[in-house]
């Protein structure tokens, strides 16, 4: 292998931690809900015992309890998961200087050359899994391949507690039955378009030539062509230090129940924009592009991004921008189940302001951020989100 990328995917992360913390839950079907009230929330995570009943993340808890009435329920407690995730991230640095935390329960390591220290690539996977099991009483699945995409696919192939090396020469044979929608990055719409071209399984991606892919799918087509050859067009960017800057900052919420009224939608957007703004300011970044995502019970997913002339880290300005996009996406009131806001095209905050009011607002935001940083999140928060409490 010229390049060796290891992907670690924790197995049923939240549920496994809850089972480790309370051994009475071990071996039982367990649902971790997004919120306290199990009748008004979605499944944030399910233990493997619960998954055996067909319970999946994102499903409503009502539906989950219909499938398995005896399942145990605990509300999600992000502090535990973030703490363990942070500790795993630290532990992984003992195996490679290039570690990236892709999400709370997924990590990438560039382990090229590290086999000289640890014996073999397979051994690195085993040692990582062993230490995680010993220190945190949970398991993870390791996939190793020559790029991120196929390392991620490899980690899914032997779940749970797997350790699998996918060599480039073995990709076609190993993935001969893999449906295209199981490839990370291929969503529902892309799957349907591929299916219309007679492409259902991974090997069938080789049916089209590069030009045909480009003509049919544009830039994504070039990525699909690379994938068909066992490559991944994404550049690998590892973040070895804590203060590496993100490419985008976003937050999303699945709501306790569908909302309809514009004031309610705007209150949730305000909350999300506040979260995005706080994080942008903590990174000392501002953003030109705002992206709004909505999930509706009737219409499915809608999302749109818009570029604005002036970059901002101002939460209120982010809200105004999100509202502009909201007006484009929704012409008449409709029920909304989930929504998210993200900011991209980031650049360092400029300290020059055209208007004095902008400067004063920036100072106020920084002051509120410092109070919240000292006394805890949401010590001071916008009054317009107060009503959100009532909906919980």
């Amino acid at each position, binding site marked *: 292998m010229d390049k060796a990328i290891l992907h670690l995917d924790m197995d049923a992360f939240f549920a496994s931690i809850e089972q480790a*913390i309370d051994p009475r839950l071990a071996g039982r079907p367990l649902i971790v809900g997004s919120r306290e009230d199990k009748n008004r929330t979605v499944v944030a995570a399910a233990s493997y015992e619960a998954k055996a009943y067909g319970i999946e993340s994102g499903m409503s808890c009502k539906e989950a309890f219909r499938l398995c009435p005896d399942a145990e329920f605990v509300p999600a407690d992000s502090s535990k998961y973030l703490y363990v995730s942070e500790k795993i991230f630290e532990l992984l640095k003992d195996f490679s200087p290039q570690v990236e935390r892709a999400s709370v329960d997924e990590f990438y390591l560039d382990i090229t050359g590290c086999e000289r220290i640890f014996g073999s690539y397979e051994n690195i996977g085993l040692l990582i899994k062993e230490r995680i099991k010993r220190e945190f009483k949970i398991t993870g699945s390791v996939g190793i391949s020559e790029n991120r995409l196929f390392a991620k696919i490899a980690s899914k192939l032997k779940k749970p507690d797997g350790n699998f090396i996918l060599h480039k020469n073995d990709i076609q044979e190993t993935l001969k039955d893999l449906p295209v929608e199981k490839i990370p990055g291929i969503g529902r719409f892309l799957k349907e378009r591929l299916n219309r071209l007679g492409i259902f399984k991974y090997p069938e991606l080789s049916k089209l030539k590069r030009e045909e892919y480009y003509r049919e799918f544009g830039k994504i087509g070039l990525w699909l062509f690379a994938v068909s050859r066992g490559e991944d067009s994404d550049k690998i960017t590892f973040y070895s230090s804590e203060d590496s800057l993100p490419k985008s900052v976003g937050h999303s919420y699945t709501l306790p129940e569908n909302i309809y009224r514009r004031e309610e939608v705007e209150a949730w957007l305000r909350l999300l924009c506040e979260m995005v703004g706080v994080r942008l300011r903590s990174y000392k970044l501002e953003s030109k592009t705002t992206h709004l995502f909505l999930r509706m019970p009737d219409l499915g997913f809608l999302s749109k991004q818009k570029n604005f002339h002036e970059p901002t880290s101002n939460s209120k300005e982010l809200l105004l921008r999100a509202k502009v996009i909201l007006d484009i996406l929704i012409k008449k009131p409709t029920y909304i189940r*989930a929504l998210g806001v993200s900011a991209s095209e980031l650049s360092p905050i400029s300290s020059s302001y055209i208007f004095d009011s902008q400067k004063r607002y920036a100072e106020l935001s920084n002051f509120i951020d410092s109070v*919240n940083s000292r006394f805890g999140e949401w010590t001071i928060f916008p009054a317009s989100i107060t009503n959100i409490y009532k909906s919980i």
Partner: protein
Amino acid sequence: MFNPNARWDRPLPQNNQTCDECIEVEAIFEKGKIIPIWFSLGGMRHEIKEIIYRWQERKGQEVLYYFSVSDGEEVYQIYFSNKTFVWRIRNG
């Protein structure tokens, strides 16, 4: 990009900490590690037979040190605040 199946949302602005009961705990603070020995609840003293799990939560400058402990019969979650020096037990 957003994950439509996002498995968990950020905590909402709320604070349940004050609902949790204050408890008396004997603990050893040793080389940066906290080792709870026993706690009393409802007038009963519970010897801690096993520290099953430990984790931390930062709330501003306050750090809460959580412990999942067993007295051999039940499992409890207790935590210590480095700001108030108070131990509490999680309700529910």
